């Protein structure tokens, strides 16, 4: 800008074109995710977990797995078991951490970069920005879980074959039906995951600090699980968020047990909706005195 000889040409001040909306925020939040390392850390974990499990199966093939956990005795017989085992163990910290990487960061990083004041002085209402960001956090969670499941199915099938599997009721389920049940399980798994996303969003708006929000979300998840194993807490078990991560197992019973799935819907709503409401109100009402 050393020689500003040319006059400033002003574009037409007439408002032409469309007003921006939630879609613009959604689209650009996805673009921003593409450029951030944390996005790939989470996705890498989603991919690596089933691959490592398959590697472990491969190394221990022939050694037998006994009845250590659900589906364990089928690990070497059907690749479709791999994503289900990942769901079983991923609930402890892996999936909460993966979704928190984005949900906990999505508002807090705007404060960190000082960009909140930049986006709030454009032509979008705060509600639209909130909705766009919330949808992206949810999209990331869906993508990470579906990616993990798909990698598990493919890698597991390559290792153990695309074979029928045994349901939790002991019936044999054909491979195509089993695949259907795997993806249905992933969808049910998204119910408690959505609640974790909501808690991540709440901590992101409250703390305005990415690290605190991500760690806080993970700590919350671990704390709920800890409560579940405390003596005398058996009565609370059905209402703990951690329990809802097992709701998908109802699909693997014959006949299908809808009770845990329906309970997961309302219990997770009890966790997620207030968290989302707090996040929304904090974001809508806050003074942007810093970022």
């Amino acid at each position, binding site marked *: *800008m050393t020689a*500003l000889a040319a006059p400033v040409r*002003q*574009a037409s001040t007439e408002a032409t074109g*469309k007003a921006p909306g939630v879609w613009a925020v959604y689209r650009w939040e996805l673009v921003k995710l593409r450029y951030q390392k944390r996005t790939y850390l989470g996705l890498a974990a989603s991919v690596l977990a089933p691959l490592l499990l398959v590697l472990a199966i491969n190394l221990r093939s022939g050694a037998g797995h006994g009845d250590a956990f659900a589906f364990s005795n089928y690990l070497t017989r059907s690749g479709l078991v791999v994503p289900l085992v990942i769901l079983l163990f991923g609930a402890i910290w892996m999936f909460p951490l993966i979704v928190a990487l984005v949900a906990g960061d999505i508002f807090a990083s705007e404060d960190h970069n000082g960009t909140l004041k930049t986006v709030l002085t454009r032509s979008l209402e705060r509600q639209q920005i909130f909705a766009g960001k919330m949808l992206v956090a949810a999209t990331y969670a869906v993508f990470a879980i579906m990616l993990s499941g798909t990698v598990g199915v493919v890698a597991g099938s390559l290792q153990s074959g695309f074979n029928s599997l045994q349901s939790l009721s002991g019936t044999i389920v054909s491979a195509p039906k089993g695949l259907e049940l795997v993806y249905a399980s992933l969808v049910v798994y998204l119910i408690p995951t959505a609640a974790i996303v909501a808690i991540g969003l709440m901590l992101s708006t409250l703390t305005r600090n990415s690290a605190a929000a991500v760690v806080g979300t993970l700590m919350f998840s671990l704390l709920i699980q800890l409560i579940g194993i405390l003596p005398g807490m058996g009565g609370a078990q059905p209402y703990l968020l951690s329990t809802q991560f097992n709701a998908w197992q109802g699909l693997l019973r014959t006949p299908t047990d809808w009770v845990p799935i329906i309970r997961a819907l309302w219990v997770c709503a009890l966790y997620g909706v207030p968290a989302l409401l707090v996040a929304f109100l904090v974001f809508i009402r806050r003074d942007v*005195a810093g970022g």
Partner: protein
Amino acid sequence: MSAPPIEVRGLVKRYGELTAVDGVELTVQAGDVYGYLGPNGAGKTTSLRMMLGLIRPTEGSVRLFGRDPNATVRALDGVAGFVEAPAFYPYLSARRNLELMAAYDGYGASSRIDLALDTVELGSRARDRVGGFSHGMRQRMGIAAALLRSPKLLLLDEPATGLDPAGMRDMRRLIRRLADDGMTVLLSSHLLAEVEELCNRVAVLRRGRIVYEGTIAELARGAGASYRLTTTDNTRAREICLGQPGIEAVSTEHAHIVFTADEPAVAELSRALVEADVLIRELAHQTVTLEDLFFSLTEGDGVVLDRPEPLVVERAS
């Protein structure tokens, strides 16, 4: 009659016991380049944040072209600017950042990206990540992001702060050109040279309150034109000054007599001195700089204007 670009009435912002902005009143008319002056911590940035709807006033109101920015973001139509340092996503390129801003602006703002980049001479760096930009380049990006909105009103918070002398000069030129193109500009600053060069009106803020509002020329006049007089007989000359109508604030500094007066009174004083056979060796007008005025308004008890209430110089209609 259309509403003025900025109309602020009784604006107050309190943070607990601290009152950051205390009853600010100002009106910025179309075509003004309006200086918003004050030392650090005077409340300039807080005021600007309220004007842009980033923080809610404790009391009072802000209207931009008659609309309340705290009620709806639509009030910012035709308005652009930045508070403190303009901020961008460091991991995105300059162009990507502007594309994002344009998408958030809508109304065809994306068609103005190239023009905005050219205007601030960042076209050649459009593909570079903003994370690697210097402070000056980010300031220029801030202007480019503002231009995407094709604004009629620009609110700029200390745009030249942190720039080197060449960068400051270039920023002033750019703002001058934007103003010449018909934009109304509110320029928050503590750089007096910048304000003196660019602004036709100023408000001076001190501890959250406006202590002066009007033109710089009126401010100087309000402070009183000061003269320095040296004669062949200063003792006699001082007696004449004290008895002469229109000659005020007479004092002696070293070998000079200093007083304030308007031009006709000075002419009459010259005649009286000559008639009293006191010869004038020097009669010089002492210019009061904006800096003098600024410090007298914002430091101590602000005695230059000798007015306890904010001084408002009415605009000529």
